[in-house]
């Protein structure tokens, strides 16, 4: 029998305050990020902010500097460039949403073909989002997060007890805000596909939490005399290897996606990787301690 962790006796509950401080800090950053996003002060993707993005694939390696200069001379305002590694691809994003849709992308391509005539290019993709659509997508994303959180809370409350549901929901919310915080600090783009990753993380990080909760519930029934925090410690230690292994297999596929999945899924898989790590941590260090604090020792005694 090959085992990653064998007969561990780690005092997870004893470390709950260290975990709370750590998680508290990152959650506060995450909440700050949400506040900034709501006020349009984060690196919002054009699907949320509205604007134009054009991805160009050049025949020869193109210098970002040259493209920037060409666009500036061509009178394009408020844009940024991103070089996509490998295939001579450059992504131009412009956030001028007041101008009529369709004009900006046309301007960008015509300026570059005029100013850089030696390096031919093809337009890989064009995305233009008007302010109305951007607003709707933002609202939908917000609703998706709220609705899924409530639905999960209800499900866990039905299957377990309310204090478990609160623990699970706090842990899930923690995972989502933590990933958001890290993306915000890294200056990564906040877009629709990131929200998709966040919701997937929310759903999946519960797998680990449910595994831990199940064992706690089971052990609480048989070990009526032991203190609750000791039972929790025991339970977490017992299921530690499966919590790690289940996340690890998804981590493997996320890493594969990160390296081979292409540029569009790069940030998505990065969010998944970070989310999986944080989700595993939170199901051990956040979810159970909250159940303990919320329910108190007596909550379990009668069951």
């Amino acid at each position, binding site marked *: 029998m090959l085992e990653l962790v064998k007969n561990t006796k780690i005092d997870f509950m004893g470390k709950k305050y260290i975990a709370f401080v750590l998680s508290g800090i990152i959650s506060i950053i995450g909440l700050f990020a949400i506040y900034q996003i709501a006020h349009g002060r984060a690196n919002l993707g054009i699907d949320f902010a509205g604007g134009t993005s054009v991805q160009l694939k050049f025949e020869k390696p193109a210098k970002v500097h040259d493209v920037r200069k060409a666009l500036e001379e061509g009178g394009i305002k408020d844009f940024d460039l991103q070089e996509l590694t490998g295939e001579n691809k450059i992504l131009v994003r412009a956030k001028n949403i007041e101008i009529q*849709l369709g004009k900006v992308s046309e301007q960008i391509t015509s300026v570059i073909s005029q100013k850089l005539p030696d390096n031919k290019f093809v337009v890989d993709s064009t995305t233009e989002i008007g302010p109305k659509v951007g607003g709707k997508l933002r609202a939908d994303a917000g609703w998706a997060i709220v609705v899924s959180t409530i639905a999960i809370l209800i499900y866990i409350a039905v299957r377990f007890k309310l204090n478990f549901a609160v623990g699970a929901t706090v842990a899930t919310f923690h995972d989502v805000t933590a990933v958001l915080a890290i993306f915000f600090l890294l200056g990564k783009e906040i877009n629709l596909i990131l929200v998709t990753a966040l919701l997937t993380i929310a759903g999946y990080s519960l797998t680990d939490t449910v595994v831990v909760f199940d064992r706690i519930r089971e052990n609480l029934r048989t070990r009526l005399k032991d203190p609750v925090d000791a039972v929790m410690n025991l339970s977490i230690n017992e299921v530690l290897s499966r919590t790690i292994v289940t996340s690890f*297999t998804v981590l493997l596929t996320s890493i594969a996606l990160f390296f081979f999945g292409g540029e569009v899924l790069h940030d998505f898989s990065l969010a998944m990787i970070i989310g999986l790590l944080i989700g595993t941590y939170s199901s051990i260090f956040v979810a159970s301690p909250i159940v303990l604090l919320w329910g108190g020792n007596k909550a379990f005694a009668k069951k």
Partner: protein
Amino acid sequence: MNKSIFWRFLFIGIAVAAAVIFFLPNTPFFKSMPDWWQKNMPNKGIVLGLDLKGGLHLVFEVEADKAVESTVERYAFTIKEMLQKKKLQAEVKKNGLNIEITPTSQELMKALKEGYNNLDMSESGQTATLRLNDKERSFIKDNAANQALETIRNRIDQFGVAEPTIHRQGQNEIVVQLPGVKDPRRAIDLIGKTALLEFKIVNDDSPIAAQLPSSITLGDEEKILSQFADKVPADSQILFEKKVNKETGAVTKFPILVRKDAMLTGTLLTEAKVTLDSQFSTPYVSISFNPEGAKRFEEVTGANVKKRLAIVLDNTVYSAPVIQEKIGGGNAQITGSYGMEEAKDLSIVLKAGALPAPLKMLQNVTVGPSLGSDSIEAGKMAGLAGTIAVAIFMIFYYRLSGVIADFALILNIILLFGAMASMNATLSLPGIAGIILVIGMAVDSNVLMFERMRDELRAGKTPRSAVDSGYKKAFWTIFDSHITTLITAAVLFQFGTGPIKGFAVTLGLGVTINLYTALIGTKSVFDLINSRRDVKKLSI
């Protein structure tokens, strides 16, 4: 073999066979299948989304308020005509969405009531006011959206796109999806053009006409308009004609003063086709009017000989030739400086008719065909790498039981593709990510079971009872953990747009199928092993 195990394997076998049959159309083997198979068996398979196939996804808003406004304009125009016919002296003025007529008389009110009883009418002092009621207004708006949809469909049919999707969304939005279009800009222009064709008389009599500059630099249109805003006669307006120098390609514009009222519009057209000028081999569009249009065209040209007639499309003058004589027969030509392609598109929009209201583009997502196929290749690569990594890890960690888990994993992937193909689900780029994540999640159920079995073995149980109680005890944990992922998949499906919906579909299907493969597939293999002989040791 135990009977119940046999039936379970048979069931798995049938499911796999069905999955293969459904997925076959997505493989090159489908082409070599016999004719009767291609005709009668599933032949559509998984559909590629626009982000993978390449193409355009456009969302337009029909500016329906403009349709209401132009309806009011049309009413004002016909009222004016009616008054002229009845020789009634009154001024007709459009004020916002109201039509005001002064002075009133009994005869006038009677005529209005007879001809326009669908309009709300009120009289105060010397002014009669007509306006559209709410019902009429919402009817016009709804009608505008429907008509726009029809017009766009006609244009795209004539443009020639395979399998376009065009539908209304909400009150006044139109979604257009065009897979595999090579020239996206041309397609967008073709759809978005209002294509309101008008014939207007050039007002060369006004002294202002002579004051207008002969040509202007591009971008100065607004400046000219505001400069002359006060001077232009009330019945006239300034429009611009665009000219392209054939040698240099330089574009110049020059202003023309025309009378506001259109003598004739494109609604009376029956035909528009591209013709090549035999002398200069430049293309032009020749149009034919229906009998009513032909009659009007003859009247208009007859009444305005030696004047110039401006041919105006969407407020841009194409040309303004001098009318030499009365033109009968109902044929005319639209010349101007444009190339063959533009001439062709012009004939398409004229034939398909004008949009009832201008369109505003809300969203445009265009993906080139090479990006799509790159994405598919990258997805295949990542999927393969992920599968191999997970499979090797499972064997390394759980030995023979890992092999069984891998069997379930492969089963899971086959059934997932089969299920998607049976639903003709759309595969998007995020959907690929969903499949790859599902590969990682697929072994989770097995991990949970195996760990449970290990617990039981440690507790000293025999392999057979360890398997049975391991399954039993792990069941609800697996069930609960799958449901939470299903909940988020459902939410994403509800709130997500196209590609995200694709992700939700693969994630949701994958997780559901995973429950089946883990709880039935893996268990059957274990039961098979245990039924053969008395197993002393479990490789786990």
